């Protein structure tokens, strides 16, 4: 018995990638990969648990690309054991969530599990990337990052449309970034990219109408500063909020070595790229209309004598723009914001920060973590300040990812494919032996994370077949990630907020478990309405289609948890339907969305 398991184990370890070919592993792939037959599931579970012991050190898993070379290489050098690869079902659900924000449909899942062809995982990744759901999820991500809300007025709709277009067509990301930095518009309702600038607008003294008649009186330093911080964070992964108020020296010696070398004047010089820009609200009856602006370079540069609401007094007089990383000055013959875009996107840190950010989103943590807190003085292993550790867990990997991203033409889809096709991405969350926190920087296992509020909602929709009611422009849409701004009210709002939905105004909250969440899942109509056998829900359709309760249960599991039930689970669920089919099925559907598995990306 032990021998039998060991053979299976070794074969699976060596050939885990080669499912479907003529080898022993290939022929047994359907069993090893937890395919359809539920009574095989129990065996597979035992095999899966035995697999890690046989998989041994990181070296046994194939290196699919350069990501693996670095990640498994480091594990091997330092003697850290990796988790095994995911099962096919685990992989498919995970990639679907990571790339499209949705759980897979039963049909998609079955097709994938039945597929015996080689490279089916790579083709699944490609297929996910080409879906409209991919566009929706990642445009929603950028809407969150740029905090699109009512402060953009109705411009958020156009901004959303523009983002979707950029993602769908895989527009070079450096081009997208530059167009945000240099946007000008008579109206942000007409020029999509200008909404990024408009969003950070800081009002002047309350109650005073802006003096549109004399632009020289209008300074808007606070807005320039907020935008400088936003671009620093979003495109360079650096946190400039500290030096926006004071020098790094004397404050940040124990926090960030590079920022310690930067002064507030450096920050002013960076914000000075925006110094000529003015964000002038359109007026109606002498009151500024919320979210409707002219954005253009209308005035003289960054003058530290201007008034401010949000920061301690500035000094130093009008500043000349200089790029904060290199202190390189803007060419005086060029438009300052064009120069900002040029200098920023040409700097290697742009590619590094971007690659690291999406790596963090897909892998659960960045090579530099958190991804918006780079310490640029601690990136080179050969050049570390005394007493400090290297910041990136895998500096060569970060370099290679960044170079690869830049060489691809800053194509996001290429970056996603590179990361998702690595076996490092495809490691299981099930860890052999005792897990230690010190293994985290090795990416030795998948980092389990809770679904975002929008993902939970949309998974409920997919699982139960009962869409939500949101708006995208003038259209009605069923998924939360299809809408442009959070507009939920009432019960739905309580639900979304409990799962961490941001209103794009407050500091962001990472989705984390809290006691209010299960309370809502137990009782909220967001859940209790959807599990009912009515209005063409999945429960209703299954009850109508199948006489056999076993089939109903199986499909509820596949549709909700993206896996087949174990024998024990099946029996419990079928028994629950014995007294009353309809109520029983509803209860099973309810129980499935209350399981932790449903709420987590593992």
């Amino acid at each position, binding site marked *: 018995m032990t021998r039998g398991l060991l053979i299976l184990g070794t074969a699976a370890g060596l050939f885990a990638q080669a499912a479907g070919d003529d080898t022993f592993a290939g022929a047994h792939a359907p069993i090893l990969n937890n395919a359809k037959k539920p009574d095989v599931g129990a065996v597979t579970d035992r095999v899966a648990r035995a697999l890690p012991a046989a998989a041994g050190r990181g070296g046994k898993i194939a290196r699919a690309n350069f990501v693996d070379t670095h990640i498994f290489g480091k594990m091997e050098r330092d003697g850290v054991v990796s988790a095994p690869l995911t099962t096919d079902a685990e992989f498919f659900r995970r990639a679907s969530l990571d790339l499209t924000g949705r759980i897979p449909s039963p049909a998609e899942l079955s097709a994938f599990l039945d597929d015996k062809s080689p490279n089916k995982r790579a083709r699944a990744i490609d297929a996910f990337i080409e879906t409209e759901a991919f566009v929706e999820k990642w445009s929603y991500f950028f809407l969150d990052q740029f905090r699109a809300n009512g402060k953009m007025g109705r411009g958020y709709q156009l901004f959303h449309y523009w983002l979707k277009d950029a993602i769908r067509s895989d527009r070079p990301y450096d081009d997208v970034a530059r167009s945000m930095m240099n946007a000008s518009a008579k109206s942000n309702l007409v020029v999509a990219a200008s909404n990024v600038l408009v969003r950070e607008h800081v009002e002047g003294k309350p109650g005073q109408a802006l003096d549109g008649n004399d632009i020289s009186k209008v300074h808007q330093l606070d807005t320039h500063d907020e935008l400088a911080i936003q671009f620093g964070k979003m495109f360079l992964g650096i946190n400039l909020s500290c030096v926006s108020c004071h020098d790094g020296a004397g404050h940040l010696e124990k926090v960030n070595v590079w920022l310690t070398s930067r002064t507030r004047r450096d920050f002013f010089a960076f914000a000075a790229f925006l110094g000529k820009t003015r964000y002038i609200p359109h007026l109606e009856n002498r009151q500024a209309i919320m979210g409707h602006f002219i954005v253009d370079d209308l005035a003289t540069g960054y003058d530290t004598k201007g008034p401010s609401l949000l920061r301690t007094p500035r000094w130093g007089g009008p500043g000349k723009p200089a790029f904060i990383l290199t202190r390189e000055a803007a060419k005086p013959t060029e438009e300052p914001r064009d120069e900002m875009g040029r200098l920023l996107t040409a700097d290697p840190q742009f590619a590094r920060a971007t690659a690291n950010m999406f790596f963090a989103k897909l892998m659960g943590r960045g090579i530099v973590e958190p991804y918006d807190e780079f310490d640029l003085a601690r990136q080179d292993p050969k050049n570390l300040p005394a007493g400090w550790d290297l910041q990136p867990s895998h500096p060569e990997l970060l370099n290679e990812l960044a170079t690869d991203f830049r060489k691809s033409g800053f194509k996001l889809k290429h970056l996603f494919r590179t990361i998702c096709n690595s076996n490092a991405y495809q490691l299981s969350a099930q860890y052999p032996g005792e897990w230690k926190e010190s293994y985290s920087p090795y990416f030795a296992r998948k980092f389990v994370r809770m679904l975002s509020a929008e993902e939970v909602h949309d998974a409920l929709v997919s699982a139960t077949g009962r869409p939500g009611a949101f708006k995208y422009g003038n259209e009605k849409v069923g998924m939360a990630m299809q809408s442009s701004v959070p507009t939920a009210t009432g019960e739905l709002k309580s639900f979304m907020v409990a799962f961490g939905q941001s209103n794009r105004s407050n500091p962001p909250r990472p989705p984390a478990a809290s006691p*209010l969440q299960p309370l809502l899942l137990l009782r909220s109509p967001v859940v209790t309405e959807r599990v009912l056998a009515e209005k063409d829900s999945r429960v209703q359709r299954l009850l109508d289609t199948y006489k056999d309760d076993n089939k109903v249960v199986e499909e509820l599991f596949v549709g909700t948890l993206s896996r087949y039930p174990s024998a024990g689970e099946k029996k419990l669920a079928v028994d629950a339907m014995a007294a009353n089919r309809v109520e029983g099925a509803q209860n099973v559907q309810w129980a499935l969305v209350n399981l932790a598995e449903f709420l987590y990306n593992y």
Partner: protein
Amino acid sequence: MSYPKTIREVLPTRRDLLQFGGLGLAGAAAQGLWPLRVSASTGSKVTPRGSARSVIFYEISGAISHVDCFDFKENPDTQKDFDVRTLKNGVHLSHFLFPRTEKVMDKVALLRSLRTHEQVHFRGQYYVQTGRQMNFAFAKEIPAIGSVIAAELDGRRRESDTFPTYISFNLEKGAAGALATGFLPPRFSVFDLIPEQALKGMALDQKAIELVEERWRLLDALRKTEAGRVAGYGIEMKTYENFSETAHRLISDARWPAAFQITEDDKKRYGNTSVGVSCALARNVLKQDAGTHYIHICHPGWDHHGQIWDRSASSHHYKLIQEFDPAFASLLEDLAETPSKATPGKTMLDETLVVAMSEFGRTPGPLNHLKGRDHYHPCFPAMFAGAGVKGGLVLGATNKDGTAHTETGWNRKEQPRIENVVATMYSALGIDWTKSVHNLPSGRTYTYVDPLGANGFVPTDEIGTIYG
């Protein structure tokens, strides 16, 4: 003081995770932050008062006009219908606006000389909820005051306590939203409730309770069959399942749905408004004495830069005051009349500190060009009642037109600030407010009351003068 610089230094060992005065930090690894090796310390020479079992914080959010209301000053735009009267303690209050509150002012200590420096709602309301200035650099780590209280009082929770320690009403309607637990574990997070929904959703009839129980049995059985596999995925999902148990215990506790029933009489007395219902529910929750000890009631909508006394506007001060007056007054009345469960011979008001304030004041003098008032930070009032507060006290004073303070209202020459209100609340609950927590993920130290108020040091004392 050495700060962690290496990965190894921030990793917790079981020995290092301290239980300090009930500040349970085991398992404090929050999603996305390093695992913590925190330690807490205090150089304390203060003795927390411990006169309150609970605190209710009524946030008059968006800012009430102080010169028209609780620090009345005659000005060119004082409305003709105000009918301002002078109370026994010398306070001037509009009888027309505050007929009910007028009757409970003998329970209230009125402090008129608070000061802040924030002038923007989001930052001001953040300040009120966390007791410190908003700083994006470490905002991720900063917990709401209620969460700190939940952590501190965790050690006092009894076996029978099922209610969350920290509950709020309508916080999500405020500018700052319901803030997270920061470096504290998620189990200390707020239950932010929308009162209208809580009435519908939390009160369960017998049939609904039975359905939840039936479903729970199936859920529990399913969990048990797969417990091994799910445990293999790591601690996060197990933590969630623990919360699920907590939620089930809460929902099965008959006291919880009972807390969310109000009578028609309640609706009449408190007003059938969102804040009226919030106050009635706050009373109910505390009355159940099932574990809740800090309630933040957010009453949004006061930001009248225009048309502040114009009844034809869609929102104006008359409207908001009509919501405030019956709600606030009924709350104090009911707390004063309800005997305490915990201490015979005392009332709920004896054991509950009630604080009511805005995040700043509104511009004194004549109205602005839009017939409203704008934000005003140099002086604004706060009200305190219960838990040993001497009712009727008038502390601090402002000048003739309400533009500046003339007396600070306590034994320091600086004006008291929100930090001192926070210290007062901690002290009332018996919490040592001079405590700090070290080695947060950013390397910084979190002080319960931050002495580095913007633009300089601020004293961190509690406002002891409210106790007479």
